């Protein structure tokens, strides 16, 4: 008899697919590796949420029993699976330590101040000086600074006496000594000596000598690190510390729409002009400054605000017809246009994505927009203008939640979450001032009876009643813990804690 078992038994199709190909096998291995990391975070039975009772924080299991009775005065947010805490509720008097994800003390309270863990270290104040501790509470950098900021990209800003420096994780100083170092969300740090500013990177290397005066709007979310000036001239420093644009004399840099690379300049003279240039300084278009204000460019399009607003592209070309009014900022690659009391959407070159047909329309976000359809209520459409859900919300699948949902759009809008933000298949919705939940088919699964409603996590969501008390419901809408807590804090998304 043949000695080849596999040949005899393996079918020609079907089960043989479980003999994994290399890519599938690798994919499984990858998932398993990541899963093992996730499983290390024990959140299930041990600790589900922090709850406040009579002004003190405790921690409960998923079944509602306390794993740690309420006793902490302050518990900060978790960072790297640890949260600073104190028994006192008075921050000035507090001694701080750290709790782990089970709500138990990991580092006993001993510090006058305690920051979040960043890149494995937390800045703390001990005996009046700042230093950095490891996760086990031991000092990685002994307290010797007047002030210490969190680590980022391997370095942190510290203050010694009246001077500011960068320090690495071994406590070694990197780069020069400055009067001040300003952190920003970019890769470059502004360093100041006297009244002059320059820029260094996170390794302390000088990118731009401190020779400029910085216009005080560093990192204001404008897509730059700073506007700098010298004499009458003005320049723009990018996030990575490069001087990317120098404005001609007589011009002021006012805005930089970083994703589109459009820089807005205004003439210093009153009643002058405004100019739009790209990052290379090339003129895109110039116009006389009028009451018509050009907003930020987004997706290559900007809204021109005036009595009859319209959209323009990066060359200043008008995208909307004369009869159409632009509504709001261009968002998600789509702009809203209104004509004759009806709304529709256009794309970045002015093509209509939907007819101008809706009674109301909201901006696109994350690929979805909410529109009000005549006789059909509120519904969601996707980026192509196609419906993505049932036309409107109906209670128990029968009665519309509102007979006239569009009498007053602000009051009667059935869903406040725009775009629909689903977690674990549920999205909280506001109906007549009360919160409930719908599923991905927009069917009401938890009736709107709560004053507050948070996202689902592990099949449980925190809800608040009209007395300001919090409890938890399951995905069937059953109250698994009655509204009894002053505050609750679920450990949503354990990877971020």
């Amino acid at each position, binding site marked *: *008899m043949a000695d080849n078992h596999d040949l*005899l038994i393996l079918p020609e199709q079907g089960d043989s697919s479980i003999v994994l190909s290399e890519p599938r096998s690798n*994919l499984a291995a990858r998932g398993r590796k*990541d899963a093992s990391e996730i499983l290390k975070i024990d959140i299930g039975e041990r600790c589900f949420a922090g709850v406040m009772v009579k002004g003190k924080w405790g921690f409960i299991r998923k079944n509602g029993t306390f794993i740690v009775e309420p006793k902490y005065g302050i518990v900060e947010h978790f960072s790297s699976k640890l949260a600073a805490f104190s028994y006192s509720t008075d921050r000035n008097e507090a001694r701080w330590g750290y709790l782990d994800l089970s709500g138990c003390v990991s580092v006993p309270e001993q510090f006058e101040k305690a920051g979040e863990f960043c890149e494995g270290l937390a800045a703390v104040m001990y005996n009046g000086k700042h230093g950095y501790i490891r996760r086990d509470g031991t000092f990685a950098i002994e307290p010797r600074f007047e002030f210490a900021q969190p680590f980022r990209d391997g370095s942190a800003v510290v203050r010694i006496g009246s001077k500011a420096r960068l320090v690495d994780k071994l406590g070694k100083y990197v780069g020069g000594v400055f009067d001040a170092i300003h952190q920003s969300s970019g890769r470059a740090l502004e360093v100041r000596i006297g009244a002059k500013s320059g820029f260094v990177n996170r390794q302390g290397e000088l990118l731009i000598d401190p020779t400029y005066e910085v216009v005080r709007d560093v990192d204001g979310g404008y897509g730059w690190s700073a506007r700098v000036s010298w004499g009458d001239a003005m320049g723009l420093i990018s996030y990575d510390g490069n001087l990317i644009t120098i404005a001609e004399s007589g011009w002021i840099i006012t805005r930089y729409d970083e994703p589109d690379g459009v820089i807005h300049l205004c003439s210093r003279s009153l009643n002058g002009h405004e100019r739009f240039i790209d990052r290379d300084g090339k003129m895109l278009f110039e116009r006389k400054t009028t009451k018509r204000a050009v907003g930020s460019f987004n997706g290559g399009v900007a809204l021109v605000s005036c009595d009859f607003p319209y959209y323009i592209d990066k060359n200043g070309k008008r995208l909307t017809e004369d009869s159409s009014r632009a509504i709001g900022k261009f968002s998600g690659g789509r702009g809203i246009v209104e004509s004759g009391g009806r709304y529709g959407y256009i794309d970045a070159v002015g093509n209509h994505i939907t007819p101008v047909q809706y009674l109301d329309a909201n901006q696109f976000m994350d690929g979805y927009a909410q529109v009000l359809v005549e006789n059909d209520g509120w519904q969601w459409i996707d980026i192509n203008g196609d419906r993505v859900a049932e036309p409107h919300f109906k209670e128990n699948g029968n009665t519309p939640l509102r007979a006239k949902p569009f009498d007053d759009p602000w009051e009667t809008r059935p869903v406040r979450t725009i775009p629909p933000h689903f977690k674990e298949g549920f999205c909280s919705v506001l109906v007549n001032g009360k919160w409930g939940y719908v599923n991905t088919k927009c069917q009401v699964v938890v009736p709107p009876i709560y004053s507050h409603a948070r996202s689902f996590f592990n099949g449980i969501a925190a809800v608040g009643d009209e007395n300001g008390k919090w409890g938890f419901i399951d995905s069937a809408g059953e109250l698994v813990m009655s509204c009894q807590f002053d505050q609750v804090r679920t450990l949503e998304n354990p990877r971020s804690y």
Partner: protein
Amino acid sequence: MVLEIVRKQTPEEEELLRKREELASVRAALAERELELADFRAQLKSFEGRYLRQVGVLYAELDDWEAKIAEIEASLKPSTTASQRAQETRKRAEETHEATHGEASKARDFQPSADLKRLFREAAKRIHPDFAKDEADRELRTRLMAQVNAAYSQGDADALQRILDEFGNSPESVQGEGVGAELVRIIRQIHQAKKNIAAIEQELSCLRASEIAQLKQDAETAEQDGRDLLAELAADVRERIDGVKKKHKALSAELKTNGR
């Protein structure tokens, strides 16, 4: 006094009886192990399908973004290493996409009924190629057993019944076979069946040690703690996608600035 003449069985005939009993027992054991194997394969296939649909697609998206990033980085700072890295990352993204969107991702949940299991056991006992009498019979049984496995993994009890009915019309034993020849055949069948039971054990061990089976085990353990491991894994990968998207955006802007 009525005397009944009873023919005394020869030692060969007694041995044949014992071996037939042993064969029946081994057949049952082999069928049981085949069922276990088929069951485990189908469960794994079903879990893998769920994993690919829920998490695999996200890995494919993540890899695609990472490939895009590597390609931009190669444009920003051209070098042999950067170009090689971009190619490797793209290849991996393509592989992940292929693995994620193939047939395996379409596998649905598998929950075999008691009746389905009974039919499979019966089919394995009667049809298994180990119990073939000759080469032609073995060929027929191999074909039918493949159909049995496929029907089981699809939860198709009707198909299993049809296969059994078809096989029921096949001759069970070879006429005119002498005791000695039958004894030799049965001994070989028992030997082969035992070897196959051992082979199935080994295959089950290999399958249980596979990454997908280990992941399934992890998911089941997590489920006992009220956790949905695949959902958590998907959330984790989504976060990473958000991170690489931001990086991609920043690099794209840089690329635009450099006019490349």
